C-alpha cells in the first residue's frame, strides 16, 4: 500500500461499500469485447490495401468506456481485445507474425489509456479553460487517436508485418489513414454512448433544442447538403466544404446534441457513398473532411453551450446581487421602524407612570389625568397604525406592489441616512408634502432607489444641503434629489452598480430615473406613475 503523502488531495476514508462489487462496471467490462468486435467488423467496408479502415467505430466504443470507468482499467481492455481477436481468428495463435500482431492489437487500448490518464490529470490539476467540461473530453477525443496513429505508423515502419507492400507505402499515409479512421469512430460513436449513461441533469438541460432553432438549423443544413450535392457532381473531393459550414452553424445554434445529429447525418451520407469508391484519394478527402467537420462542429456546439451557461451564471449573480441590495435596504428599513416605534413607546411609558402616580394621589388632578389619558390613546392609535404597516412589510405583501405614501417613504429614507449625513456633515432638507400623494410599487425597492440617490448626493457634496423636492402632475409623481456641485465638474455619465440596479427597478415600476446637471446643481429625478388614494 502506498503511503499517503500530505499533498494527496483527498485521502479517501475507508468505506465498506467501496469494497462491494460494482455490478454495472462488471457488466460493462463483460459486454465490452463483443461490442468492440461488432464495431470492429462494421469498419471493414471502408478498408484499403494499406490501412484497416477509414472509419473505425470500435475506437469510439473504447474511448467512451475508458472515459467513463477510468484509465486504470486499461490493462483489462488490452487483455479483452487481444482475447477476442484471438478467439475470432483475426490473429492466429503461433502464426508467423503472432507477436507483432498481438502487439498491434494491444498498442491501441494502451495508447488510449495513456492519453485519457494524461487528460484526466490535466483536468484535475489545471486551472485553465482547457480543464472546463467538455474541453477535456474533446482533447481526449482528438489526442487519443493521434497518439495511437503515430504509434502504429512508426511501429509498422520499424517492424513491418506480413503485408509485403507496406515498405513501398509512405509512413504518412498509414498514420493519416489510422488517424482519420479512429477520429471518425471516436467522434461519431463515443459522445452518444456517454450521453446514454449520463445522469447529469444540467448537461441534459443544456442539450435541449428549441423547435424554432431546430427548424432553422435543419434548413441551413439541408441547403448545405444540396449545395454539396451540386458540387459533388463536378468534383467529389470538394464536396464537404459547404456541409462543414452548415454543420458548424447547426452546432452554434443547437449545442452539442445538434452538432452530433449533424455529424451523424453527414456520416450516414458520406460513409455509404465512400465505401464502394475505388479511388483512395477521394475516400481520404471525404473522410478527412468528415473528421474536420466533426471536430469543428463539436467545438461550435460546446461553445454554444458554454455561452448559455455563462449567460445563466451572470443572470444568477445578478439575482444574488439584487437580493443582497434588497436585504441591506430591508435592514435599514427595519431600523427606521424601530426608531419610529420607540418614540411613541417612550411617551406611553412615561405617561402610564404618570397616571399611576396620579392615581395614588388622594385628590388627583382630573384635568391632568384626562390629558394624559388622551395622549396615551393617541399614541396607542399611532402604534397600531405602524404595526399595520409593519405587517405588510414582513409578510408576502412585501413582494406585491402596494400603495405607498410618498411623503412617508421620503421621511423614512431621510431618517435611514441620518447617521451617514451627520458623519458627512450634510443636511437633508425635506419639504412639507401632500399626504395624499401616492404611488404603487414595492416599498423596499423604491426605498432602495431613494437611499441610493441620497447617498450618492451626499458623497458627491459632503458638507452641503441635499434637497429633496416632489413634483406632482395628474398622472405622475417626480421625486428630485439635488446636491450642489463644486464649480464645473464634468458629468461622467457613469452610474455605480447601485444606480444600475436603481434604474432597473424604476423601469420595472413603469417609471424613469434621470440625472442632469444645471446651474451648479446635480439632480437625480425619479418619476413614477401616480395612483389615486382609495377612499375607504
Amino acid at each position, binding site marked *: 500500500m502506498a503511503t499517503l503523502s500530505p499533498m494527496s488531495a483527498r485521502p479517501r476514508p475507508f468505506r465498506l461499500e467501496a469494497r462491494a462489487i460494482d455490478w454495472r462496471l462488471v457488466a460493462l467490462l463483460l459486454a465490452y469485447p463483443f461490442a468492440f468486435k461488432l464495431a470492429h467488423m462494421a469498419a471493414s467496408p471502408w478498408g484499403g490495401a494499406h490501412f484497416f479502415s477509414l472509419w473505425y467505430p470500435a475506437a469510439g466504443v473504447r474511448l467512451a468506456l475508458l472515459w467513463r470507468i477510468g484509465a486504470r482499467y486499461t490493462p483489462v481492455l488490452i487483455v479483452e481485445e487481444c482475447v477476442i481477436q484471438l478467439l475470432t481468428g483475426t490473429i492466429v495463435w503461433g502464426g508467423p507474425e503472432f507477436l507483432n500482431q498481438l502487439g498491434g492489437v494491444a498498442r491501441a487500448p494502451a495508447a488510449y489509456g495513456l492519453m485519457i490518464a494524461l487528460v484526466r490529470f490535466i483536468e484535475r490539476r489545471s486551472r485553465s479553460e482547457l480543464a472546463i467540461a467538455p474541453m477535456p473530453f474533446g482533447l481526449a477525443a482528438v489526442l487519443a487517436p493521434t497518439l495511437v496513429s503515430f504509434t502504429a505508423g512508426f511501429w509498422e515502419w520499424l517492424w513491418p508485418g506480413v503485408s509485403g507492400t507496406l515498405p513501398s507505402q509512405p509512413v504518412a499515409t498509414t498514420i493519416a489513414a489510422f488517424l482519420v479512421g479512429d477520429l471518425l469512430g471516436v467522434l461519431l460513436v463515443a459522445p452518444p454512448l456517454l450521453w446514454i449513461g449520463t445522469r447529469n441533469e444540467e448537461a441534459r438541460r443544456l442539450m435541449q433544442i428549441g423547435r424554432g432553432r431546430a427548424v432553422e438549423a435543419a434548413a441551413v443544413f439541408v441547403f448545405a447538403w444540396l449545395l454539396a450535392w451540386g458540387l459533388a457532381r463536378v468534383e467529389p473531393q470538394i464536396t464537404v466544404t459547404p456541409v462543414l459550414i452548415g454543420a458548424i452553424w447547426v452546432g452554434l445554434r443547437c449545442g452539442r446534441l445538434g452538432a452530433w445529429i449533424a455529424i451523424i447525418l453527414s456520416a450516414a451520407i458520406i460513409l455509404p457513398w465512400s465505401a464502394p469508391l475505388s479511388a483512395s484519394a477521394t475516400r481520404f478527402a471525404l473522410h478527412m473532411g468528415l473528421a474536420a467537420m466533426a471536430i469543428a462542429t463539436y467545438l461550435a456546439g460546446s461553445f454554444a453551450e458554454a455561452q448559455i451557461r455563462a449567460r445563466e451564471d451572470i443572470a444568477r449573480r445578478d439575482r444574488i446581487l439584487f437580493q443582497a441590495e434588497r436585504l441591506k435596504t430591508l435592514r435599514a428599513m427595519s431600523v427606521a421602524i424601530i426608531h419610529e416605534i420607540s418614540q411613541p413607546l417612550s411617551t406611553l411609558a412615561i405617561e402610564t407612570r404618570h397616571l399611576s402616580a396620579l392615581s395614588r394621589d388622594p385628590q388627583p388632578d382630573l384635568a391632568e389625568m384626562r390629558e394624559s389619558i388622551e395622549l396615551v390613546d393617541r399614541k396607542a392609535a399611532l402604534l397600531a397604525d405602524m404595526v399595520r404597516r409593519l405587517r405588510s412589510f414582513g409578510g408576502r405583501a412585501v413582494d406585491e406592489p402596494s400603495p405607498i405614501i410618498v411623503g412617508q417613504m421620503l421621511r423614512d429614507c431621510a431618517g435611514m441616512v*441620518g447617521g451617514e449625513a451627520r458623519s458627512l456633515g450634510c443636511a437633508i432638507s425635506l419639504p412639507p408634502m401632500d399626504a395624499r400623494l401616492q404611488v404603487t410599487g414595492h416599498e423596499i425597492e423604491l426605498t432602495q432607489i431613494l437611499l441610493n440617490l441620497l447617498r450618492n448626493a451626499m458623497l458627491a457634496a459632503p458638507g452641503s444641503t441635499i434637497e429633496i423636492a416632489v413634483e406632482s402632475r395628474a398622472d405622475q409623481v417626480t421625486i428630485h434629489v439635488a446636491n450642489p456641485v463644486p464649480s464645473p465638474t464634468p458629468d461622467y455619465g457613469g452610474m455605480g452598480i447601485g444606480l444600475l440596479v436603481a434604474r432597473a427597478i424604476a423601469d420595472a415600476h413603469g417609471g424613469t430615473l434621470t440625472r442632469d446637471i444645471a446651474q451648479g446643481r446635480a439632480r437625480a429625478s425619479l418619476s413614477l406613475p401616480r395612483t389615486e388614494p382609495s377612499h375607504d
Partner: protein
Amino acid sequence: MTDPADPAIIHVVDDDPDLGRAVARLLGRHGYRTQAFDTPRAMLRAQADEPAHCLVTDVMMADMDGFAFAERMRAQDPAVAIIFMTAWPTTSSAVDSVRRYGGLDYLEKPIDEGRLLAAVAEGARWSRQRRGALARLAPLTPREREVLHCLAQGMSNKMFAAALSLSPKTIEDHRAAIVAKTGASSPAALIALVREASGTDG
C-alpha cells in the same frame, strides 16, 4: 434632590412634541422647573432669557441634529449640562456624544426613568457648581486669571513669577486681589474653584 424654593431649570428638546412634553412633565413631578421645546432654535432663544441648568435633547431632529445643537449650546453657555436621548442608538454616536460633545449621558428610547432622573440630578448639581464658580471668577482681570491658573497648577510664587515674567511682589498683589474677589482664602479652595469652573469636577 432639589431645593423646592429654587428648583433647577431643565429644558427638554424633542421634535416629537408629545414626547418632549411627557419628559418635561415627568421631570416636573420630581421638583424641577421644566419647559419643553419642539426645536433647538426655540430653546436657544429661551436660554438667553433664562438659562437652564440641564438640557435633555433628542439626537435626531429634522431641524438641527442634537450634536450640532449641543455645540451651539456650549458656545452660548458653557455651564449647561447636556443629556442626549435617542431612538437610534449606535456605539459611535454614544462615544461621540460623551467625548466630543460633552454629554453627561446618552439615553436610549424608550427611556429608563431612573437613569434619566439620576442623570438630570447630576447635571443640575454640576451646572450649579460650574455656574457658581464661573460667577466667582468673572470679576478677575485677564492677568489675574493667568496667575490663578498657575496657582491652580501648584506652582510656587517664584516659579510662576518667572513663567509670567512678573516680580514676586506683583504676584503677591494679584493673589491678594484674587482672594478678595473670589472669597477663596486657601490655595486648596482656589484649586477647587478652578476645577469647578473648568467643569472637570464632579
